[in-house]
């Protein structure tokens, strides 16, 4: 969840009311955000960099607010306070307008080579904008947040903002061989080629993560003006020439990307939030983007669309009964300007460009519920009558667990993921023979495979409890995973029972006795034909001559035996141990 930092007193001034922390927490809760932390710049620097660095930092109280990941319209203090003011009905949601310039419109020509790397570009101009230190910081901050979030770490979209007065249109969006690109990147003191820039930033902790997006492409995207001044090499870095400052008056915002919809959305978000500071607030000057085939698009689109919703239906979905007028009011509070249609039964809801999260009428229904207040809705119990059933395998598992604990064995709960060694070399097996499912991206060795046997986890539990009095008698009933081509995902779970006896002597007879007990519980008689018996077998996990197949109706359902001393040693244990592991799915 993204976090927005807001200076408390400034916010309260905007809201026209001083709240206590508790009151504000409640307001956030109702609005669907969370007051995560009350802090100050000083406090944060102290925590992150130490007390010395914090000397002189501001101790103005700051609220850290967690906002939902799909609400790009409240990601910055401008949008957040605007949203709250509308929610509190102290402000009418502004209307965002594209206003054509009196003179010639700026153009951005897209060259065909961009198709190979980053095909889309959109742009717009914030004219006569007034920044302050705080506004400027918020402007940069919003771009960072969008890059992380909606732009998927710049893979889908990258934003560049430039001082329009430093350059001269028309602009070109091109993709060139890295060697043919040469410019001075932001805040650097000399020019670099495309490759040079990649090398330069390979050590930069912030930017190095974005290099792979274009690194292996034959051409790198660049935007330049009519004098060949490079604005940016997206998604890596802007040029130094066009950099904006607090004093910048006109800003051209360009977004390039691989996902057109998100590229448009990003541009809309940036200009909607910051056009507030333009001479004519909430107006944006368009840029015309011309694609190689001659098609032209005017950006930003700032789409307003309408949805018609049925009042009764929404009332039914939420479980309330409010008038059409009230419903329209609640939606308007959520920045969805709404009016009751003539029939009095339906609403016409306007979805502004800032509310891209509204995909469906169910999203409108949610905003009605939020506007009404979730906690004001009367709780009801649906009259859905169903006969409950247990999943038979889980039922069997729970019944067996009780009985096995009753038989003196203590239950372990171990991980389904483990290392390859745990299920192979430590048990005297080869990994190829295990049939295990392998994980592609484990962060540590502990998560290389899904376990094919419960035994390693139980033995590790013994290892961690060697201070306990002997004997240790443990069991676990849980799932292992095997590859199985017959399944749609190529793998299946299998429910196993594993039990061990760890003592100064091997206690084979104790484990054997548990098997007899389990068979009795499952009503399987000792019988070579129609019941169970055990039959000597060889298995590298077990001590030679001390291992048997557990045969049920002449089919092996598992093994029992005394563990091989090598296995004991590899799990860092030092006493003899007998074990059994069976597949209980046979007994359903």
């Amino acid at each position: 969840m993204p976090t927005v930092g807001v200076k408390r007193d400034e916010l309260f001034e905007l809201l026209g009311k001083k709240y206590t922390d508790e009151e504000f927490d409640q307001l956030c809760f109702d609005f669907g955000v969370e007051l995560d932390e009350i802090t100050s710049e000083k406090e944060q620097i102290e925590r992150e960099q130490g007390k010395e660095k914090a000397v002189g930092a501001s101790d103005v109280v700051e609220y850290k607010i967690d906002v939902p990941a799909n609400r790009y319209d409240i990601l910055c203090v401008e949008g957040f306070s605007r949203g709250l003011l509308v929610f509190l009905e102290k402000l009418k949601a502004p209307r965002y307008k594209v206003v054509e310039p009196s003179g010639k419109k700026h153009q951005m020509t897209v060259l065909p080579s961009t198709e190979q790397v980053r095909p889309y570009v959109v742009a717009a101009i914030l004219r006569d904008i007034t920044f302050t230190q705080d506004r400027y910081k918020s402007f940069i901050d919003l771009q960072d947040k969008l890059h992380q979030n909606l732009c998927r770490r710049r893979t889908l979209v990258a934003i560049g903002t430039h001082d329009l007065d430093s350059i001269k249109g028309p602009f070109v969006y091109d993709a060139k061989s890295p060697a043919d690109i040469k410019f001075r990147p932001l805040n650097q003191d000399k020019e670099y080629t495309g490759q040079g820039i990649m090398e330069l930033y390979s050590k930069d902790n912030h930017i190095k993560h974005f290099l792979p997006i274009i690194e292996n492409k034959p051409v790198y995207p660049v935007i330049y003006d009519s004098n060949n001044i490079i604005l940016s090499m997206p998604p890596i870095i802007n040029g130094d020439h066009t950099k904006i400052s607090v004093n910048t008056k006109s800003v051209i915002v360009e977004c390039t990307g691989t996902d057109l919809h998100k590229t448009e959305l990003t541009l809309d978000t940036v200009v909607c939030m910051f056009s507030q500071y333009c001479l004519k607030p909430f107006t944006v000057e368009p840029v015309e983007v011309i694609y190689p085939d001659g098609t032209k698009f005017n950006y930003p689109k700032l789409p307003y669309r309408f949805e018609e919703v049925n009042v009764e239906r929404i009332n039914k979905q939420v479980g309330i009964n409010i008038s059409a007028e009230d419903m329209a009011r609640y939606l308007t509070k959520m920045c969805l300007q709404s009016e009751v249609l003539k029939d009095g039964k339906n609403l016409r809801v306007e979805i502004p460009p800032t509310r891209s999260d509204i995909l469906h009428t169910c999203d409108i229904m949610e905003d009605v519920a939020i506007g009404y207040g979730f906690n004001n809705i009367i709780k009801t119990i649906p009259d859905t009558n169903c006969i409950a059933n247990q999943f038979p395998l889980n039922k069997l598992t729970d019944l067996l667990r009780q009985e096995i604990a009753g038989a003196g064995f203590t239950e372990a709960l171990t991980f389904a993921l483990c290392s390859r060694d745990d299920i192979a070399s430590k048990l005297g097996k080869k990994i190829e023979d295990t049939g295990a499912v392998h994980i592609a991206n484990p962060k540590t060795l502990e998560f290389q495979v899904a376990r094919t046997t419960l035994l390693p986890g139980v033995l590790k539990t013994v290892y961690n409890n060697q201070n306990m009095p002997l004997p240790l008698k443990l069991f676990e009933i849980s799932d292992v995973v095997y590859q199985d081509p017959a399944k749609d995902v190529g793998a299946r779970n299998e429910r196993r029972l594993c039990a061990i006896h760890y003592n100064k002597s091997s206690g084979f007879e104790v484990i054997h006795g548990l098997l007899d007990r389990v068979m009795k519980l499952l009503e399987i008689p000792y019988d070579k034909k129609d019941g169970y018996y055990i039959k000597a077998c060889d298995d590298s996990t077990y001590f030679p001559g001390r291992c048997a197949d557990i045969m049920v109706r002449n089919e092996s359902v598992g093994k029992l035996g005394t563990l091989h001393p090598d296995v004991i040693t590899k799990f860092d244990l030092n006493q003899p141990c007998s074990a059994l592991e069976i597949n209980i799915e046979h007994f359903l």
Partner: protein
Amino acid sequence: MADFSELVLKNVNEKGEIDTQDLAKLENIDHQKLVGAVKSLQSLGNIIKVDQKQSKRLKLTEEGISVAEKGSHEACVYNSIPAEGIRQADIMKTVPNAKVGFSKAMSAGWIQVDKKAEGGPKVFKKVDSIEDKVEKCMKEIQSLKLDNITDAQIAEFKKRKLISEEKVTSYIVSKGDDFTLNVSKPEVDLTAEMIASGSWKTKTFKPYNFEALGVPPQSGYLHPLLKVRTQFRQIFLEMGFTEMPTNNFIESSFWNFDALFQPQKHPARDAHDTFFVSDPKSASGFPMEYLERVKKVHSEGGYGSQGYKCEWNIEEAEKNILRTHTTAVSARMLYKLAQQKPFKPAKYFAIDRVFRNETLDSTHLAEFHQIEGLVADRNLTLGDLMGTINEFFQKLGMTKLRFKPAYNPYTEPSMEIFSYHEGLQKWVEIGNSGVFRPEMLLPMGLPEDVSVIAWGLSTERPTMIKYKYNNIRDLVGPKVDLQMVYDNPICRLDKH
């Protein structure tokens, strides 16, 4: 012991009062044994009255005992001198304690020395016979006859470390209120023989030590978290929910994400959040007509939705993963439900493992148990969801709930559930909930008026709060402390 008890009682009966020291001497038995008998009689109640008496007594030291046996050191020296005399040096060598004996014998005037004799000083008897008073005194003291011994002698013997003083405790025993001669030995335990013979009626029994702990029973123990799981299963069953088959840890991205209208570019589908499977790498066998509908609603929209307006690739959907939530199973179950005509309402639940490739810390593991409940029926409301959740948490003893708007790609509305924790004095997030989006349900083929309301939580979090664990590794995995498992109480979730 019984014999000594009888002896004590007999003597008390005859003499009215006895001193245990006297009786021990009289009967020539170890005093301690009599003391034992007295104490055991005392423990039976008021049979005897006992008073303690402290006295002092003279006792021979080891040296004193040796004097009593062999005569005093000076007598030994005197006796070792032959008529013709002996060299002083020889005496010193041969007679034990000769140094003390020599000087005492000299001062008693029993012997004399010729210092000028040839070959060194020579010792002669000075008197013809001696009376060894010291030996005599020792013998008398040994037999506790002190009448003939003067205080001066006692002082001297003490100085010579031949005698010492010891404290003597004896017990003066007389009849108690319940005096009887017939005490039997108290029994430790009731036996089958006593029951058969009826002898328990006349026997007395040793009092039981109710302060001590009992013997722990021989038993195995169930794991605390799985006891919690059992209770959650029970609650769902009480509420009429049917358990879903969740025994499939490996899931395709299709069922885990795409079917839930989770966009293909969603961060949850990144490698640093989800475990991808390298072998078997991809899934197949999807219901293709349904898959096409899913593809369409993602990329183009439909069913009244704008969709995500971005490309949708089947390759992304085929990628196998370790399921990140049991909602993948819910999706499979709802799809199955949608194929049944006519529609029948359903209430499902699951409690099983899910996997996240997250950064591990004291409250997060790569796998945890997710609890999920859902109701599918016509015209369900948000109020129904809140009411159902309320009933569910009531059964966990959580009565003060509030709901916060939230975001989740596959539910709308989405609500976080908070409960007021009396102990912590604050609102604690305890779960998530929502109404499944039409973009998820309608492509499955469910009727338009069917809503599915759902909520979920983890098993670990409420268990950690309930049993006050700070580190999840103390609860789940091989590092669990078995003593904790042994000592864990029964699980009653509604009891705080």
